């Protein structure tokens, strides 16, 4: 088993303006994903995140002074909206699971590494 964090990114959109059918399709997709993970591995954690405009970033400037600013750490058209922390047999399984998520998502599959203490 390998541990992966699956990062979900998408262009910000208005969930409240989606039709019930669209919302259901999203729910179904996430359900399918979680079912696949349960069948092939384990679900360790997950969260939906507030949109990027609710983010706060702490960054050191050129002089080393740490500054707190409004917004995400990188201004991109697509922003991280959620993650799953899962265990799955290999990358192909992780990709197969990620395919079940809504196609509007851009999904990054990142392996978790163990830091040897």
């Amino acid at each position: 088993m390998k541990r992966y964090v699956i990062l979900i990114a998408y262009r910000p959109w208005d969930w409240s303006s989606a039709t019930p059918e669209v919302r259901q399709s999203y729910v179904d997709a996430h359900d399918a994903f979680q079912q696949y993970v349960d069948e092939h591995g384990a679900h360790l954690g997950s969260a939906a995140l507030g949109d990027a405009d609710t983010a706060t970033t702490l960054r050191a400037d050129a002089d080393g002074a740490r500054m707190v600013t409004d917004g995400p750490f990188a201004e991109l058209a697509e922003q991280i909206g959620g993650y799953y922390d899962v265990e799955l047999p290999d990358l192909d399984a992780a990709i197969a699971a990620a395919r079940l998520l809504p196609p509007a998502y851009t999904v990054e599959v990142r392996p978790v590494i163990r830091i040897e203490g």
Partner: protein
Amino acid sequence: MTPDEALAATVREEWGRLVALLLAQFRRLDLVEDALGDAVEAGARTWPRDGVPDRPAAWLLTAARRRVLDRLRAEAMAARTRPLLVVDAEVAAALGSVRADPGDLVDDDVLRLVLMCCHPALAPEVASALALRLVVGVTTADIARLFLVPEPTMAARVTRGKRKIVTAGIPFGVPDASALPERLGVVAQVAYLAFTAGYAPGSGPDLLRADLSGEAVRLVRVTLALRPDEPVLRALLALLLLQHSRRDARVGDDGRLVLLPDQDRSRWRLDEVDEALGLLQGMPGAVTSQLTESYRLQAYVAAEHATAVTASDTRWDRVCEHYAALAALNPSPAVRLAAAVALAERDGPRAGLRALDDLDGALPHSHRLPAVRGELLARAGEPRAAVEALDVAIARCGNDVEREHLTRRRDELASRRE
């Protein structure tokens, strides 16, 4: 054959199979390649002294296995997670589980290896390097030479690829039958990349690097042997063989480029042409995938050239038809450029020039576009404009032999009186 030659020959012929077998047993890419390298070194030391073993490949396999087990044992010791007795029992179990290798199992393992090296999660140039290294057994130094990058760069690329395989968990396995055609398509693209780097290298002193193209052909052959009916592989191998068959005629004895119409056709490898035509004939009629159709149509074009007894026998009308079909499938600028050349052959230089007009925006750095334009302008009786176009081509051309050819042509045109 001397022991050294026998060792080199065994490495050459068996590397992919050895890597695959070891991976199938131990699943530790990091350990397998090192162990195999050590085994080869051991062979280089002991075969001259003790004679070449009866079964050289089996000797290397056994030697490599021992080394992997030694390393696994050492790792277990270092981790101190289990008492000694248990470690020894595990090692014994691993040795005991050595299965006899009937052909099928080995073949499947080599396919697993090919698919692992050509996984879509690897960048194409990394996949090419890994496939040549692990499946075909080309040394990192030779791959670096073939792709014209410094050896440390290529070594780092291979290391990155192996690290990605291990860290991201790229599996050593064959996907579902439903996913296999698409994955074999990726294998085809990786091989094609390697072939093209050898067939038409963009830079450097060689017009072609037949060795690299030859290795790419070998990679496709290995994969096709495991999946003989796979259309994308048949079409690609046919295309590669047809292009590769001309390798001995593309450079003159003086080291200069020889254009297709001027090539000595007796130097073309007709056995490879025949093999390619056989592959094309045996293909299913139905359209399978865009990639397969693209290779097939390119192969048909190459076949028209290969079967023309002399350049003037070339059936340009058929070539144009194939390019039209190819452009409908994939209107890439490269296809359209090649189609313009064929059009000029069939309908005259003006027709070709008109077809080139729209391409400048799409190919701003290409040297081939202005080179073709220059050639067609010369044929159309406009040497001054031709010289201008060739100047652009020369400025953009990175390959020494091609540039030298373009320069000679330009100088020849410039010396004519209008």
